[in-house]
């Protein structure tokens, strides 16, 4: 049958949470046509990100990204969400970019287009056959966002819709600093009252004067909130945030987390001192930093070898709540897997290894983020006010 109408591209659902899968389909193409599916997103920083896959339509003139194989592009094979996670800055962009949403109250807009033929470059100069806009949300309807500024603690609390009370989470990010709300918003969309915590300004990690009691105060703000179940508050951290979580779980006499999720963290620092002290301790071995072939800094050497001296490490044998460690085997920023292995040994010796769960992913790097986020092999990491690059594979 000869179709004279224009092709149609559709995305279902057209509005989804960022951790929900979608189905991208093209219909009304001539049978057996080579086409390119393309995604385009303009970030809040005004950079453009794109991904694309090469397909051939079937006898009905249809392409279904969830079912068909991409034979080229920024991803290959059967990848329903490839148009999102394989996004990268368009050619000509500034280097070291990282895609992170700061305003979580409005969705991320992604344009999905279909082009004739197998195209690799110059998408802006051509007209697509069809195109459709899709929305990706960090906040479910009804989730409330509350600015927190009390007892010296700064953060944003996200509360799910409903009567409550809800289990709570303290959400902490890494050494880049600032206030990142998107994971807490997403966790609240899954039913956890979550507070994203700010604990130092961007690029000021080495002078951050906060000590553990800042985090204890923050934890208690969540715990004491009328809509939070005070005996069900956990810790969620990435990188430096994980280090804080592990420290609190082991050493704090004030807070009793119900559980901890630690992504790309480690336990190799001594007790006491400020965040700045901890960070500076990490980088005392700066001579161990290597550069890769692109001149990106590889820091993982600074963390090795894992010390044998227990006074140089968090006493994880004292942890008495379930703890989940999530690491990437190819973490070039810090030897997180080696650290996890050492933690397991310490906990085995102390008799609390049954509390530990380890998830390790081959070829995954340091920045393990919510699903379908674009992957960054290396991004800018500000230190000492200068622009250095850190390889985080």
């Amino acid at each position, binding site marked *: 049958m000869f179709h004279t*109408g224009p092709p149609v591209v559709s995305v279902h659902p057209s509005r989804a949470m960022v951790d929900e899968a979608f189905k991208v389909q093209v219909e009304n193409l001539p049978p057996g046509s080579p086409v390119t599916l393309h995604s385009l997103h303009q970030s809040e920083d005004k950079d453009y990100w794109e991904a694309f896959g090469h397909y051939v339509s079937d006898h009905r003139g249809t392409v279904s990204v969830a079912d068909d194989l991409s034979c080229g592009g920024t991803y290959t094979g059967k990848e329903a969400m490839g148009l999102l996670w394989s996004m990268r800055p368009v050619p000509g962009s500034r280097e070291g970019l990282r895609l992170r949403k700061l305003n979580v109250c409005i969705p991320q807009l992604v344009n999905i*287009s279909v082009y004739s033929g197998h195209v690799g470059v110059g998408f802006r100069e051509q007209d697509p056959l069809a195109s*459709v806009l899709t929305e990706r949300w960090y906040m*479910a*309807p*009804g989730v409330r966002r509350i600015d927190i500024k009390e007892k010296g603690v700064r953060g944003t609390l996200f509360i799910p819709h409903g009567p409550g009370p809800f289990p709570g989470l303290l959400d902490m990010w890494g050494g880049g600093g600032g206030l990142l709300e998107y994971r807490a918003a997403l966790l609240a969309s899954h039913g956890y009252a979550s507070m994203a915590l700010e604990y130092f300004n961007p690029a000021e990690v080495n002078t951050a004067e906060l000590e553990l009691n800042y985090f204890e105060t923050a934890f208690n703000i969540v715990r004491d909130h009328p809509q939070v179940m005070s005996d069900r508050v956990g810790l969620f951290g990435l990188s430096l945030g994980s280090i804080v979580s592990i420290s609190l779980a082991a050493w704090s006499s004030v807070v009793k987390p119900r559980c901890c999720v630690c992504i790309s963290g480690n336990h190799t620092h001594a007790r006491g001192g400020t965040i700045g002290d901890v960070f500076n301790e990490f980088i005392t071995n700066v001579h161990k930093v290597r550069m890769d072939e692109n001149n990106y800094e590889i820091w993982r050497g600074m963390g090795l070898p894992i010390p044998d001296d227990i006074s140089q490490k968090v006493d994880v044998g004292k942890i008495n709540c379930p703890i989940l460690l999530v690491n990437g085997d190819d973490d070039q920023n810090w030897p997180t897997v080696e650290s996890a292995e050492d933690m397991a040994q310490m906990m085995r010796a102390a008799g609390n290894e049954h509390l530990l769960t380890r998830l390790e992913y081959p070829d995954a790097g340091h920045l393990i983020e919510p699903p379908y986020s674009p992957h960054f092999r290396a991004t800018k990491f500000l230190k000492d006010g200068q622009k250095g690059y850190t390889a985080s594979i």
Partner: protein
Amino acid sequence: MDMKQHCVKLSVQPSRGLVDEKFTVLVQNLLPGFQLTIHALHQCEDGHSWEAFAHYTANATSIVNVSQDPSLGGTYSGVEPMGLLWSLRPVPGSKTGLRLRKMNVQTPMGVTISVYQGHQKEGFLDQVLLASVVVERWYMAPGVRRVPITEGRLTATLFLPSGPGPFPGLLDLWGWGGKLVEYRAALLASHGIASMALDYLTPKETGRMVDNDYFETAYRVLEQHPQILGSRIAMLGLSFGAGVTLRMAVYSKGLKLSCAVCINGSHVQPIDGPLEQIMTYFNKNVEKTRFDEDNQLICRDLMLPIPTDPSLKVDVGRLQCPLLLVVGEDDQNWPTYESAMDMREMMERAGNSHLLTVLSYKNAGHLIQPPFTPFTRASTFKSVTIPPFTMMALWGGELVAHSRAQEDAWRKTLVFLRENLYGDMKPGALFSNL
């Protein structure tokens, strides 16, 4: 047995959907045998509250899935994935004669879905609330653009689908209530058809009714639009709008339609003279209207019996494009079924019945709307006649049958439009259930 509040987990997927998309309502972490009520609450634009509810009992799997498990009672029963929407009705104590229509389509309809302990029937605000989520239902897909039309003397809004186009076009007409009702056009644009909601009844200047040239102007705006395919324009009308659609499809030299959809309308109207004459014709027969035992006005007899005089019916035998008729057999407002039968006969005699598809639904009423729109058997209606009159119009239909008809008719209407606007140009009847 009592349930700790924190255990019950309620989720609705997707949390943001188009109004014609289905959702899955799941309640988890229940104890086997636990009795619960799932409740939906919506506050519409004019401030009235609408609710629906259903009783469930958790089975051994400790989960209630509304798409798979039967409701044991409430505003719907049995397995009804979308019952929480189509069985919405005004909360007790509301005014009578209400109808749920969204006028601002740029914001979503917010529905709060909640789980209460036990099998509750009323007084929900005082019950033990176990969990609650908010769901958004949108008439506009992301990227759909809303463009008020100011050309000519038109009162219209154009909705352009997401993307560069070009797109097929559609003129969308409502009935005798007038006003610019945008939601169906917005939804059609969300399905890839550039649709113009056209108000043709609310008198702007002189109070005189518009005539053929008004629709021809609207058609031309579509035809000449840079993002619309001038050769692929359809017309869709409900109620009086259906009659106008038939009139334009057959007699207008200025309109060349790819196809037409008529929902619960009739071809009965004086064809000589201006559109205004139709009002006169109906006014002449007004004594044929009657009231039922609840004092609700039944208008269907106005046009019965179907006249044999050819000057009183659109000559559908001359139709040259595919026509889809959607018929609610229990329509109490218009004689839709009888008109459809007469149209079929005329087309069979003329030899063009291959263009005709009739979708006829037993126990469905007059207001066949996009799927999951709450059913209204009767509501307050203010006509645009001069002088205007307000009455309680009986639309007809039965809740479940009507809701099924809405879902089925919409799906088939989209298929019909897609085939005729996106597909090849060969005309043909798709399917008929008569």
